[in-house]
């Protein structure tokens, strides 16, 4: 697994200098590819050998395209096992930034759950562990900060989604030295722009955008709808890539983590980080076009 600064050290110097697809986590300086991979629903395939192989193919394509954050949670059914299966098959690629969560109401169960998660992935140490949906956040933050201090964890994070619990998240971002927060941000859900993203910038906290496609609803609704004129300038011919470029062009968003079951979609999503991203004026025009549809 990619560990903090080791992630960037693994890349050739020339690539490091130019690679616009890499993003920096301010608190540690670790660099991660801008497009990661979610695993909610898509990787929950139980022990179905055919679907396990399909997921492995998705992970393999993700790694081929530069790797980065793979995000999971104990809440996601068998997704952690699926990731572990894929990573073992692929010989634990160096470029995966292992990202998972603690999700239990019982504070005392946190450490055991982390141990189970580690064993599901088949790794010794996570690059990032987050408190899922801020559940039992005080106890879990204590556990995670202690792990980080002992060198058993790269980064500590907090997650929320669907715009929930933003007030609490804001308070925790002010009061605790978290490295990363994960929240919902996409062209249709932009509430985080008001307070959380400016705060993240002020505090040097990296931001992961979850639900970049509103769980697939956005590409589905926009299919066949005209792209804005900006798409051509950005070298984009389909909505999913434009949606990702929009997210990644926000100066305070570090990484977006679309989930997919399809190799073609992984490649398409990874490609969105390459080439130009919209500037502030283009973002406004894209938004206006989206609102007009």
């Amino acid at each position, binding site marked *: 697994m990619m560990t903090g600064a080791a992630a960037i050290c693994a890349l050739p110097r020339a690539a490091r200098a130019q690679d616009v697809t890499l993003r920096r986590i301010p608190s540690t300086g670790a660099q991660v590819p801008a497009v990661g991979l979610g695993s909610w*629903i898509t990787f929950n*395939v*139980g022990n179905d050998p055919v679907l396990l192989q399909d997921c492995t193919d998705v992970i393999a394509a993700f790694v081929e395209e530069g790797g980065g954050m793979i995000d999971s949670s104990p809440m996601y059914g068998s997704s952690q096992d699926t990731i572990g299966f894929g990573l073992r098959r692929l010989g634990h690629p160096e470029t995966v930034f292992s990202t998972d969560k603690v999700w239990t109401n019982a504070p005392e169960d946190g450490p055991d759950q982390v141990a189970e998660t580690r064993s599901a992935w088949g790794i010794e140490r996570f690059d990032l562990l987050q408190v899922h949906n801020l559940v039992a956040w005080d106890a879990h933050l204590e556990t995670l900060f202690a792990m980080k201090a002992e060198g058993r964890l790269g980064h500590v994070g907090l997650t929320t989604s669907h715009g929930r619990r933003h007030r609490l998240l804001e308070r925790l971002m002010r009061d605790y030295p978290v490295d990363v927060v994960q929240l919902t941000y996409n062209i249709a859900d932009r509430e985080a722009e008001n307070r959380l993203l400016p705060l993240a910038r002020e505090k040097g906290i990296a931001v992961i955008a979850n639900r970049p496609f509103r769980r697939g609803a956005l590409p589905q609704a926009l299919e066949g709808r005209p792209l804005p004129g900006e798409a051509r300038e950005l070298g984009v011919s389909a909505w999913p890539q434009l949606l990702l470029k929009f997210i990644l062009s926000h100066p305070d968003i570090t990484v977006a983590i679309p989930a997919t079951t399809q190799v073609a979609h992984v490649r398409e999503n990874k490609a969105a980080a390459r080439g130009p991203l919209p500037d502030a004026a283009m973002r406004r025009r894209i938004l206006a076009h989206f609102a007009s549809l």
Partner: protein
Amino acid sequence: MGEWLSYGLSDLLLFSERVYWRLFVLENAALWPLPLVAPVVLAGIGVVLHARRPEAGLPLLLALLALAWLSTGWSFVWQRYATVNWAMAYLAPLFAGQAAILAWLALSGSRPPVAPQPRWLGHGLLLAGTAVYPFLAPVQGRMLAGAEVAGIAPDPTAVASLGAAFLIDGRGLRLAVLFLPALWLGQSALTLYVLNGPAALSPALALAAALAGAVLLPRR
């Protein structure tokens, strides 16, 4: 609580339709040729034997259904479905509960009282669970290999059990047999509604027929 209410049904389902239907393909393949035998035996005992010799047919049918709930709960719900839906780990024990109720009725010294005529609702639901359900797969555009089969898959087993409930006389006994299958079909209809929409019709219709029967049919 307020936060939970803000979740839509689809936010609470953690697996996809593709994964759900694949469960039946894998289960049928693992238990082959049982998926062929189980519904034939259940339909044969349930309808043919019961129609001819109701007093002997009913305990046999209930005993077979008890076996079906036990094996479906263990093999499908616990071992397979729970791998993609952790909530199933909590529902699987209910299958053992339903098996116990059916076994008690079938094997207890006094024979379960047979419902008086008309028994068309009981026989109809039994046939729907055993003979009609497997063919929903091709009708819905899936392979027959992934058919939901009574005795192997929970929904048709529950539908057939609703049928058996209507072959029993006595409101209390009937409701005891109806309750868990109805509960299961209710959650199944909700799940399928979120996954696919139209596929929810089959469990929902069976459930509606049973509820209507429970209310409208003459009871003693």
